[in-house]
């Protein structure tokens, strides 16, 4: 990957992270404040303040939606939701997947059963699996996180398991075993470090996949509750007025696509760095 593109991606992700952490400071308005006198303002149109408490002249930078809610604020808080869900899923999926992967790699008896379950989970297309879980448990932040985590865990399990299986044959593991290193320590100190590199790369791809999946679920109306400002919800609500006020879709779409794209580029960059011989190969 070319250097400037990679730097730009890091910059974009940094901006999104800042937006997520500092949402209340950056957002100029309450993302859920309904303002009937300022509905469907185009980007950069000035706000009609005649009926508002704050009379200072100002622009709606990204315009307003069909209920007069400020889109910039919705994007800023949407970043918070996306990052929260993306990071939670990534952390939980990596931790849980690593644990299960280590168990599979170490204990033959558990391996067969667990891997069949993982094969089953991987055989169901991601969105169907997530929808099945959402339907079963009902929508909400934690359900979304749980549903996407279930989708992503098998990938981590496969990776960690394959690392354990391939490393187990190495002479230094044999040496450690014959020196009497206990299994837990053997796994943590001698085997797991081999998985850190590939896990980091996988984690970035899980992050982008989770952000994308959350937005898709929310877009379909099956994800986050409607009163939570998210990129996906904003796009879903912009659908009805798409032909007249397309900015309701373009702006959240741009945030979503740029974020996912940047995280993917960073993942590609990390992989090339860790494994240069793969640099020009397909994923």
């Amino acid at each position, binding site marked *: 990957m070319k250097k400037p593109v990679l730097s730009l991606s890091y910059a974009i992700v940094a901006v999104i992270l800042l937006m997520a952490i500092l949402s209340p400071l950056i957002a100029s308005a309450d993302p859920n404040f309904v303002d009937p006198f300022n509905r469907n303002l185009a980007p950069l149109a000035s706000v009609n303040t005649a009926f508002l408490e704050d009379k200072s002249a100002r622009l709606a930078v990204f315009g307003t939606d069909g209920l007069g809610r400020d889109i910039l604020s919705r994007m800023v808080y949407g970043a918070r939701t996306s990052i929260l869900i993306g990071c939670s899923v990534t952390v939980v999926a990596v931790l849980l997947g690593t644990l299960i992967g280590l168990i599979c790699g170490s204990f033959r008896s558990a391996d067969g059963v667990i891997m069949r379950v993982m*094969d089953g989970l991987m055989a169901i297309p991601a969105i169907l699996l997530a929808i099945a879980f959402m339907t079963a448990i009902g929508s909400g932040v934690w359900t979304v996180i749980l549903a996407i985590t279930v989708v992503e865990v098998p990938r981590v399990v496969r990776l960690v398991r394959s690392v354990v299986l391939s490393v187990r044959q190495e002479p230094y593991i044999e040496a450690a075993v014959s020196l009497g290193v206990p299994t837990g320590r053997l796994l943590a100190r001698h085997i797991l470090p081999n998985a850190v590199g590939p896990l980091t790369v996988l984690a970035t791809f899980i992050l982008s996949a989770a952000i994308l999946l959350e937005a898709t679920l929310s877009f379909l109306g099956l994800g986050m509750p409607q009163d939570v400002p998210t990129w996906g919800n904003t796009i879903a609500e912009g659908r009805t007025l798409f032909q007249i006020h*397309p900015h309701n879709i373009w702006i959240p779409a741009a945030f979503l696509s740029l974020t996912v794209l940047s995280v993917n580029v960073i993942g590609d960059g990390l992989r090339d760095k860790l494994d240069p011989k793969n640099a020009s190969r397909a994923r």
Partner: protein
Amino acid sequence: MFSYAMRRFITTIPVLLGISVLVFLTLRVSSGDPAAILGGDAVTTEQIEAIRQQLGLGEPVWKQYLLWLSHALRGDFGVSYYYKMPVTQLILSRVEPTMVLAVLTLAVSILIAIPLGTAAALRAGSIADSLSTAVAVVGFSVPVFVVGYALIGLFSIKLGLTPVQGYHRLSDGALATLASTILPSLALATVYIGLLTRITRASVLEVLNADYVRTAKAKGLMPLPITIKHVLRNAAAPIVTVVAMGFASLISGVVVTESVFNIPGLGRLMVDAVLARDYPSVQAIILIFTVFYVLINLLADISYGILDPRVAS
């Protein structure tokens, strides 16, 4: 070859069974009391009890599962809570748009991705090469629904070439169907094209360095026959696998695309069914999509054996 196919078929049976258990458990057990849902608002306790008896809900879970599975295997997925008609009939009425969409998407993707990927591999650094990278990046990062709206904005609203939304049945004439499905298929194809272009490029690159390709060149064969007969034929196996694996993103994409373009297919039906808490329909559609996906991958594995006989032995 036959025994290889049989072996592969047998290994998918436990996966299919596992999926059916998973789908059954997540949606049946946790979905509340189906009898109460079916009964509606003004229902007496006796009526609920009667429905419970009729559906076999008093039985232990494993018995319910076996009952459900044996009915499902015979094509009976119960009655839809929301549409109040047999789920099988409901699904059959929605299959056509999804099939048309999938076939068209597959055709568009293969027609674009394989030449593009091959061209990219043949000339590194050419326009085709950069284009293939760009397509792949966009395909992986831009959500299908965003691509969908971009296409609607450009072709339907700006240029007025295609209908904005909706679907025309094949019985209304194939041209009308094509006009109403061309944009959705293009949107859906972006993910697929990205995936396919990259894998085509990678596997063609690998084959290009093979001795037999050099020999073919040395014999003085023309570049095009070499590309088609020697390179693509040998690069085909991984491409076929990716076509099959890509069906997962195709299915996800169908669910989204049908919502964007308002197409009354299976994906749309599933979203509506989830929103209406119509569990039998959701169960059936997830099961059908997944079984379809597993079978496609089984077919790909078997054809892998035909394309590359070393695998089968």
